[in-house]
């Protein structure tokens, strides 16, 4: 989130789209309702009428996958009516920048597309620059190749008729939403957007978030209290663990992963973002300090200036290598891994295309699973369709301690780190995950110290001094993450003060690139300074104007609660909206929230642009870093109910990689799978259900898998409310109870009726008895072009009267295994539906 949960309460308009906040973040919904009590408007855009829709002032149904068209239409509306926030757009964004005349967009493709690679060469996605390298601008926004005019031309195609036909949203509803939200484009009005997986789990997910951000910049809502673009994250510490970089493409604090082209630290540092415009802060210019300090936290005294602080010990991906989830499981399915460590996850149910995921694990020699409960991953070998006697995989299932049986910090969606205290001892033999990691590392190290082995240095020379008497001290780790001085410093370049070796750095401003500081994650530097553990603070004194609580816990970066807050003031530092002031320049310094850098506002002497993390210092309408185009364009989902993309001849996102293995089956516009399916969560269960399916209270409330379908579709298929039905996709089949409801209505898309069915996905074959299996049995292995997040929100299915096991016993000639194993000749070829998986015969 750019903002915090509580500051939603001061908003004038809350667009909840791609999120069902009332269901999935119920306690935070109170802040949405507080805003409504004060006259704020709630808009809910969703394929289903949800619990959030029930609280909304405006509900607009939209076909799943229509988001870019819907929001692109809002950009056109705002530009046509000329109601954008002009001062903000001209000064705080790249709208005035002139784009190269070699850049173009035709029929769904931007310049530089390579169909063989399904990727773009982005050489033409650049700005014209003057002889100093500063982008050429037209502050009148009139130049035909300025970003503003290109954007206007681009979204001119997203007219009401086209958008309505494509999304299934009525023109009246579109206008109502556009008018209401665009009213926040005035300086003293503010709107916020709340989204979740409903935006990210599409093959165009990143671009959906971008088009939303573009609207928020057009309306001047970024950096404002009650504004921003807010990802309502799904797990208690998904923000924190993303920050700690348990992901292939980053190192802690969002530094890029090390790749093979950068064989020494100097080459890595040569990729540090540079700013040519002296008015740009370009905070990332500090990256060399952060990587040197990170390496010191990895290798301690073994990392020296002479050996690049141990840089060569870090594993390196190949240039262009994608090691994300879908590729990982594709490799596992192909037998490329012998070992797999799984901590607190349940991929057998959470990954797409469950059959592929589950069969992939049977190719492993060993699996280590750390969890609170037995789960479908640890026990895949005895799951439906599996013959344990034929599965070689050894499994170590390790009992983990609960959150209340250990201490440490977690970071909420609003970037606020809060400390959890230990209330009791771990149950039985269970141990804290961090303790397990410590003991496992210690054993592996002993083994390498004794026997040697492949390249033992990174293991033997790792700094690992966090345990006392064999028990990890999590405060010691938190202090490592904050960072400390590794040498006495007589006069620090920042404040000219002396610092002692071993004392905590005050915050990341004090980090150095020469090895005299160590820091495990620069973003968290300041969370545990000499003064103590900031994340444990419990002072609830608010800043009333923006309803934030700066002394409750600690937010990264630097305890800033609303990021990009220098965009909430005019060029002289006065708040656009004084009654909701976030920060204000008082003539000599900023007052209010922690400012997004202490330098003066851009209109004053020595002033700087507001967006300090961007090399150009401004927000980007034209996004040169994207894999699939600098402007968000609508493409159809991989599996869609209509033959043609109404906007271009590119049906699907041209920059998404396609998998072509034997279990990667896709279809489109297929009479065998005529209905659109989408998946979602329920209040009473959580993710794959592992932490809710074992609780009698919650299972009583939501006992089994169900599928929501409209009255019209139920009538069409002769399905009664409450009966068990079969849902089939090209990947598999499963049962669910039919919930016939008028919360879902058929859509009229490009002149044809399209039916939607909705599936919760929290279940698994293991528990509760007869609760059903994961909806991911049905979902395809396909991801977003930029993030590779799977497209869980749209895929094609059929629904049938339940096929009971006896029906399946009908002898069917089995297809020759060879034939089935043959890869699809074309990525979009329509494969035959595979035979019913044995999973369906379970009792």
């Amino acid at each position: 989130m750019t903002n915090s949960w509580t500051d939603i309460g001061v908003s004038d308009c809350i667009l909840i789209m791609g999120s069902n906040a009332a269901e999935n973040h119920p306690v935070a919904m109170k802040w949405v309702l507080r805003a409504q009590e004060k006259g704020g408007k709630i808009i809910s855009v969703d394929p289903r009428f949800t619990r959030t829709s029930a609280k909304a002032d405006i509900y607009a149904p939209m076909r799943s996958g229509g988001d870019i068209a819907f929001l692109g239409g809002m950009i056109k509306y705002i530009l046509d009516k000329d109601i954008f926030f002009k001062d903000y757009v001209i000064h705080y964004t790249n709208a005035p920048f002139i784009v190269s005349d070699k850049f173009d967009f035709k029929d769904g493709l931007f310049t530089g597309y390579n169909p063989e690679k399904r990727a773009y060469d982005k050489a033409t996605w650049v700005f014209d620059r003057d002889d100093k390298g500063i982008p050429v601008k037209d502050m009148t926004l009139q130049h035909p190749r300025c970003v503003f005019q290109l954007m206007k031309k681009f979204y001119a195609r997203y007219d009401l008729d086209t958008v309505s036909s494509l999304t299934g949203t009525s023109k009246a509803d579109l206008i109502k939403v556009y008018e209401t939200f665009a009213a926040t484009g005035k300086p003293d009005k503010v709107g916020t957007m709340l989204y979740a997986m409903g935006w990210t789990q599409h093959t165009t997910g990143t671009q959906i978030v971008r088009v939303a951000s573009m609207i928020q910049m057009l309306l001047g809502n970024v950096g404002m209290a009650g504004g921003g673009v807010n990802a309502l994250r799904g797990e208690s510490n998904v923000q924190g663990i993303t920050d700690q970089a348990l992901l292939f493409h980053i190192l802690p604090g969002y530094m890029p992963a090390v790749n093979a082209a950068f064989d020494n630290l100097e080459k890595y540092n040569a990729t540090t973002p540079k700013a040519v415009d002296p008015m740009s802060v370009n905070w990332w210019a500090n990256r060399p300090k952060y990587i040197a300090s990170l390496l010191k936290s990895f290798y301690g005294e073994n990392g020296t200036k002479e050996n690049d602080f141990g840089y060569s010990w870090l594993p390196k991906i190949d240039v262009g290598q994608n090691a994300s989830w879908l590729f990982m499981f594709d490799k596992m399915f192909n037998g490329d891994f012998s070992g797999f460590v799984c901590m607190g996850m349940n991929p057998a149910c959470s990954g797409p295309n469950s059959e592929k995921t589950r069969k992939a694990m049977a190719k492993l020699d060993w699996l280590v699973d750390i969890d609170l409960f037995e789960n479908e991953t640890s026990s895949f070998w005895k799951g439906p369709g599996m013959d344990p006697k034929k599965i070689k995989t050894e499994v170590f299932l390790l009992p983990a301690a609960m959150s209340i049986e250990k201490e440490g910090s977690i970071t909420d969606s609003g970037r606020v780190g809060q400390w959890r205290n230990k209330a009791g001892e771990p149950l039985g033999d269970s141990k804290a995950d961090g303790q397990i990691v410590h003991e496992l590392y210690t054993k592996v190290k002993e083994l390498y110290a004794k026997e040697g082995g492949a390249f033992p240095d990174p293991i033997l020379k790792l700094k690992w001094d966090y345990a006392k008497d064999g028990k990890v001290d999590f405060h010691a780790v938190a202090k490592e993450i904050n960072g400390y001085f590794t040498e006495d410093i007589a006069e620090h370049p920042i404040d000219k003060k002396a610092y002692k070796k071993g004392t905590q750095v005050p915050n990341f401003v004090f980090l150095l690139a020469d090895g005299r500081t160590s820091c495990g994650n620069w973003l968290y530097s300041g969370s545990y300074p000499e003064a103590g553990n900031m994340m444990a603070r419990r002072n609830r004194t608010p800043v009333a104007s923006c309803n934030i609580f700066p002394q409750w816990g600690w937010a990264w970066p630097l305890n800033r609660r609303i990021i990009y807050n220098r965009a909430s003031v005019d060029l002289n530092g006065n708040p656009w909206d004084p009654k909701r002031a976030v920060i204000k320049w008082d003539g000599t310094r900023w007052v209010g929230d922690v400012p997004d850098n202490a330098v003066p506002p851009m209109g004053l002497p020595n002033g700087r642009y507001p967006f300090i993390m961007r090399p150009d210092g401004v927000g980007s309408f034209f996004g040169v870093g994207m894999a699939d185009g600098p402007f968000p364009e609508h493409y159809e989902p991989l599996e869609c109910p209509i033959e043609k993309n109404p906007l271009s001849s590119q049906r699907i996102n041209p920059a998404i990689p396609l998998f072509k293995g034997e279990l990667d089956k896709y279809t489109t516009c297929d009479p065998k799978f005529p209905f659109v399916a989408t998946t979602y969560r329920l209040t009473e269960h959580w993710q794959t259900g592992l932490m809710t399916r074992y609780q009698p209270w919650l299972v009583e409330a939501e006992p089994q898998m169900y599928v929501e379908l409209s009255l019209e579709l139920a009538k069409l298929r002769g399905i009664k409310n409450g009966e068990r039905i079969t849902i089939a996709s090209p990947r598999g089949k499963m049962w669910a109870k039919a919930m016939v409801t008028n919360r879902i209505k058929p859509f009229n898309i490009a002149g044809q009726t399209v039916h939607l069915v909705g599936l919760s996905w929290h279940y698994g074959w293991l528990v509760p008895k007869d609760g059903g299996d994961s909806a991911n049995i049905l979902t395809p292995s396909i991801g977003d072009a930029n993030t590779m997040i799977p497209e869980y929100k749209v895929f094609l299915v059929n629904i049938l009267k339940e096929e009971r096991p006896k029906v399946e016993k009908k002898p069917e000639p089995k297809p020759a295994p060879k034939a089935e194993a043959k890869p699809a000749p074309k990525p979009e070829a329509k494969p035959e539906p595979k035979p019913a998986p044995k999973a369906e015969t379970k009792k």
Partner: protein
Amino acid sequence: MKITRRSFLKISGATAAGTVMGGLGFDFSPVESYAQELRIKGAKETTTVCCYCSVGCGIIVHTDAKGKVINTEGDPDHPTSEGALCAKGMSLYQLINNKDRLTKVLYRAPNSTKWEEKSWDWALTEMAKRIKKSRDASFTEKNDKGQVVNRTNGIAGIGSCHVNNEEGWLYQKFLRALGLVYIEMEARL
């Protein structure tokens, strides 16, 4: 209306019980309220943050003299949640004191049809051997282009955003020390 902390808890307790029981209604009689107070009387209060979604609601955990968790409830002092919890957060008690939680290390041998209970010492020793064997067999110092990569191609690691920042940081450090590049977690899903 002035609400004291204690009266607030009574109200929120009643509301929450109604939610968890599926809206069956709740006879909030003074007798039951008195009983509830007695149960946590003298118990130690520890604050925590809910383990489910990312709202970060505050929860108070009550433990008895033996350290057993006897109650959990919303923390009224928390600025975001103000004492409220959803059905999942209200059920935290049942997650802590759950008869199905794993309390032993379990091992499944190749081609076996069952779990066996094992000691930590045995499991750690055996896992370390497997890790070393896979790592040594798949370690790659240089890629096809001859560039130094120093990575372990044969092991993948995933998880977890259920764990604390400190644990996650240790875990990524461990996996990277082993040379893994296939490192992923829930944020990708």
